């Protein structure tokens, strides 16, 4: 394998400008490569310990809130798209696989495999963020906002789907700029025939494209399940009457189950007028006493469909998934750094610590998501 070549290449070169025995990749204060690797890894595990404790604070808040008001979590969790959560879980698991594979490739000096697996990991991270962007903006459009910003569901005047769409466009601005930049870089590297730059710009370009693939996938699933999932919600929420016209009339209609309307005919009427001219509709306020509201546990949905309750759920939802997404972004930055080093063929069996340590971090991010997914999305 090319391990020996690389080693000689890197060591020989460095020996010329170093006055002592250490090759470039071995820091001065370490005796040998193994000591360097073990020290780095110990440091990484210590960092992961602080990460676990950091996230445990949020899990603690979650546990407290859920134990105090399980019905709120059952109610609000319905607005999370289970399919998108499951897809993102699969994407993260696959990225963990490719990351573990990248560690193996770096140990065996399989440079091509290393760049490919790192690129796939980066691409999966981008898909994850793309899907997340769709999930977030879809919720913002429905008024499913944290804390005091939460808008009670089922009152059409509260909803501003346009806002969700606009927010999604804003979330696509930076990735679009990066896409153009990476494309320009890649073309330039192609013209200059710089293999090193091609090996860097290629994966980055693919990752930027994958973000938009994630957005597309998210939108497709989201619109798909607003149709299909609607019937589920309606029945589970206790509205026995089916609303076929409703589902087709309004794509984003998953919130209307919790509508405190009086009869199903007026319900449908409102739906239609809402879907035609959302800004004009003002609902006659339903009298809560006459309405058979869907119940969550022993609590009617009206009680939980408000700022202090469902709003609190969304506070903890945005907090946990948002901090997790920040970790994904941080992971993408360090994986890009690995791609640069890998493009310069810097990793071999004596020096793969950075790949291994970034891998550990990446698996921890996956580890956190493994708990977040059932705890947030799969509450029945």
């Amino acid at each position, binding site marked *: 394998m090319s391990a*020996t070549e690389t080693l000689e290449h890197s060591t020989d070169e460095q020996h010329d400008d170093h006055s002592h025995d250490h090759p470039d990749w071995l820091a001065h204060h370490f005796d040998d490569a193994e000591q360097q690797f073990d020290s780095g890894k110990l440091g990484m595990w210590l960092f992961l*310990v602080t990460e676990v404790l950091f996230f*445990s604070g949020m899990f603690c808040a979650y546990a407290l809130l859920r134990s105090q008001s399980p019905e709120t979590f059952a109610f609000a969790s319905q607005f999370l798209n289970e399919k998108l959560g499951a897809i993102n879980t699969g994407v993260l698991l696959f990225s963990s696989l490719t990351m*573990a594979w990248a560690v193996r490739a770096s140990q065996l000096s399989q440079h091509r495999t290393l760049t490919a697996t790192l690129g796939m990991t980066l691409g999966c991270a981008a898909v994850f963020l793309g899907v997340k962007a769709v999930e977030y903006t879809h919720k913002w459009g429905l008024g499913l906002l944290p804390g005091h910003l939460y808008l009670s569901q089922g009152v059409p005047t509260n909803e501003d789907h346009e806002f969700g769409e606009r927010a999604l466009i804003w979330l696509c601005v930076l990735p679009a700029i990066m896409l153009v930049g990476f494309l320009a870089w890649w073309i330039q590297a192609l013209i200059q025939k710089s293999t090193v730059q091609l090996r860097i710009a290629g994966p980055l370009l693919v990752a930027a494209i994958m973000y938009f693939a994630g957005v597309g996938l998210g939108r497709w699933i989201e619109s798909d399940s607003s149709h299909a999932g609607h019937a589920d919600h309606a029945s589970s929420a206790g509205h026995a009457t089916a609303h076929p016209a409703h589902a087709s009339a309004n794509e984003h209609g998953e919130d209307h189950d919790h509508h405190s309307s009086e009869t199903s005919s007026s319900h449908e009427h409102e739906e239609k007028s809402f879907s035609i001219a959302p800004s004009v509709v003002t609902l006659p306020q339903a009298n809560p006493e006459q309405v058979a509201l869907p119940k969550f546990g022993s609590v009617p949905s009206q009680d939980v469909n408000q700022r202090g309750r469902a709003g609190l759920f969304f506070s903890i939802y945005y907090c946990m998934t948002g901090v997790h997404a920040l970790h994904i972004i941080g992971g993408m930055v360090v994986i890009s750094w690995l791609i640069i080093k890998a493009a310069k063929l810097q990793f071999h069996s004596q020096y793969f610590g950075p790949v291994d340590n970034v891998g550990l971090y990446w698996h921890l991010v*996956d580890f956190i998501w493994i708990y977040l997914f*059932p705890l947030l999305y799969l509450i029945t």
Partner: protein
Amino acid sequence: MGHTAASPDAAHGHHDGEFAHPASIRMLLTVFFVLVGLTFLTVYQASFDLGGAEIWLSLIIATIKASLVILFFMHLLYDKPFNAILFISSLIFVTLFLGFTLLDAKAYRNQIEVRDTLEESMKPVPKQPDVEPTRIGATMM
């Protein structure tokens, strides 16, 4: 789950021995597919109403998945025991943290309920749900 042979490294003489233990592709793929299978299981399990058992079941499945990630993808099974001690100790502290917090999570339940009942009885007309201050909100914020 054995390791494949490390890369040949005969040509360099500065460093003693190999310390890289590349994971076998078969092991990585097996772990991945088990993880995907468990994800399907946890989604499938959520379609049943299991009442109070539901959260425990989904937490058990999540813990099995997390253990697979830690032991195989993160190599903790083959790592230095000290790293394992570090990580496991963090999990022990998380358990203590959550456990002690939840121990008295309901300690003030009675007072909250008494106050709620008082507020209910003083309320003249039911207000709009979205403007009404709530029980949890009022106590937590």
